[in-house]
């Protein structure tokens, strides 16, 4: 009798296990399917994953983060002297530019008043810090520490002091994911500062450069031309610095982004005014 009971419970446990495994496979199939079709369920899963798991993984990996930071400090310390010299030179150069910029800014204000023109400055939604950066094997993403709680939604431009960083592609309650402009799937409408020729850029597979995927009327820019956002996509506000043209071939060109994607600490989420 006891033997029979034990055998029965074993059979029950086995069938329960099989049912559970089948359920997991069904869930896998549904999640992959919903990823393509239904955004609500997938967004809920992603939000939960990012909001709940990130603090735990941060805590667990904190010793490695501390060691990495110490390594970075040591590396910085070794370059201390050279950096100092470079900075001194840069300060002298920037002081000259500052004088010029103040003069231009004054002139600009006066001309605007004379023309009674409106400005197209950007609205800063929030200045946030970058908490994670994806390794770059698949996609170039960063996570920022603000989400729907600060009105950061999908498809908002992200900039820093050097220029365009990317756009938000997903927002949970407390965090958002930003697709960097050097990702091959990104698409940035730009124009040249010199002759206003329009084109669309996306990242190269190694993430170092931007490549043109479309140029209006096949008008290719010259090497050294500066590229700024054209404002055509309605996501990126106009006239944000993007990249500098470094190579022009027959039907496309390569540009070097201004933003250093390996040193992203603070960024601003903005929208057009």
């Amino acid at each position, binding site marked *: 009798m006891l033997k029979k009971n034990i055998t029965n419970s074993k059979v029950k446990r086995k069938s329960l296990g099989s049912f559970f*495994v089948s359920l997991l496979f069904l869930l896998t199939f549904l*999640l*992959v399917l919903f*990823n393509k079709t239904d955004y609500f369920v997938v967004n809920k899963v992603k939000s939960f994953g*990012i909001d709940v798991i990130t603090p735990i993984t*941060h805590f667990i990996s904190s010793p490695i983060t501390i060691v990495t930071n110490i390594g970075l400090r040591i590396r910085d310390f070794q370059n201390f002297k050279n950096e100092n010299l470079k900075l001194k030179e840069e300060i002298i150069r920037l002081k000259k530019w500052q004088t010029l910029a103040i003069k231009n800014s004054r002139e600009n204000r006066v001309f605007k008043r004379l023309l009674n023109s409106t400005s197209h400055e950007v609205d800063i939604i929030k200045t946030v810090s970058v908490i994670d950066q994806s390794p770059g*094997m*698949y996609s170039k993403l960063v996570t920022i520490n603000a989400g729907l709680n600060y009105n950061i939604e999908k498809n908002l431009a992200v900039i820093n002091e050097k220029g365009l960083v990317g756009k938000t592609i997903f927002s949970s309650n407390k965090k958002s994911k930003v697709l960097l402009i050097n990702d091959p799937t990104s698409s940035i409408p730009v124009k040249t500062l010199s002759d206003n020729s329009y084109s669309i850029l996306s990242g190269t*597979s190694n993430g170092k450069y931007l490549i043109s995927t479309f140029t209006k009327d096949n008008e290719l820019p010259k090497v050294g031309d500066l590229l700024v956002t054209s404002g055509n996509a309605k996501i990126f506000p106009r006239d944000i610095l993007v990249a500098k043209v470094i190579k022009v071939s027959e039907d496309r060109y390569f540009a070097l982004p201004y933003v250093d994607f390996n040193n992203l600490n603070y960024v601003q989420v903005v929208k057009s005014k």
Partner: protein
Amino acid sequence: MHSFLRLNSFKIYNILLIIVFSIIVNDNHSFPLIYTAFYCIFHFLIIYLGVYYYRKQLYFIYFLYGLGLDIFWLNEIGPHLIVFMSMLVFFNLSTKYFYNLSSFKIYVVLIIIQLTMISFEVFVSFFLLNFSFNLNYFIQIYLSTLLLSFPIFLFFSKIDKYK
């Protein structure tokens, strides 16, 4: 209660898996080699568990890690989840053949499985989600796998002694 708290090799591997997962989903862009090394260790660890410690609980573990990697790295769901779950079915069907092999042959099989698994992940992400294929990263990961797998294999064989 006592048996639940007592560490055995399976529990040690799971603790290692949590630690390695936490490291690879967090920011390590300052030292990319660290990230690549842990990425390889994570894959080797998950394959090792599947081959030597196959049990139904692993389906849940693979499901969680597959989903986690997809959400954190790709912001899409698919490649890792599909490959991890399929690999576990493969381990279920094939591990009986591994027992007849020598230790060195099993080690070679593990490396081949790892390289195949990473390749599949890249191909699935390319075909399913249009993610680009970066040959440099691919070569870097292949080389790291070949370099790191033997010391990891030795280390794991020490952990196996904790019954």
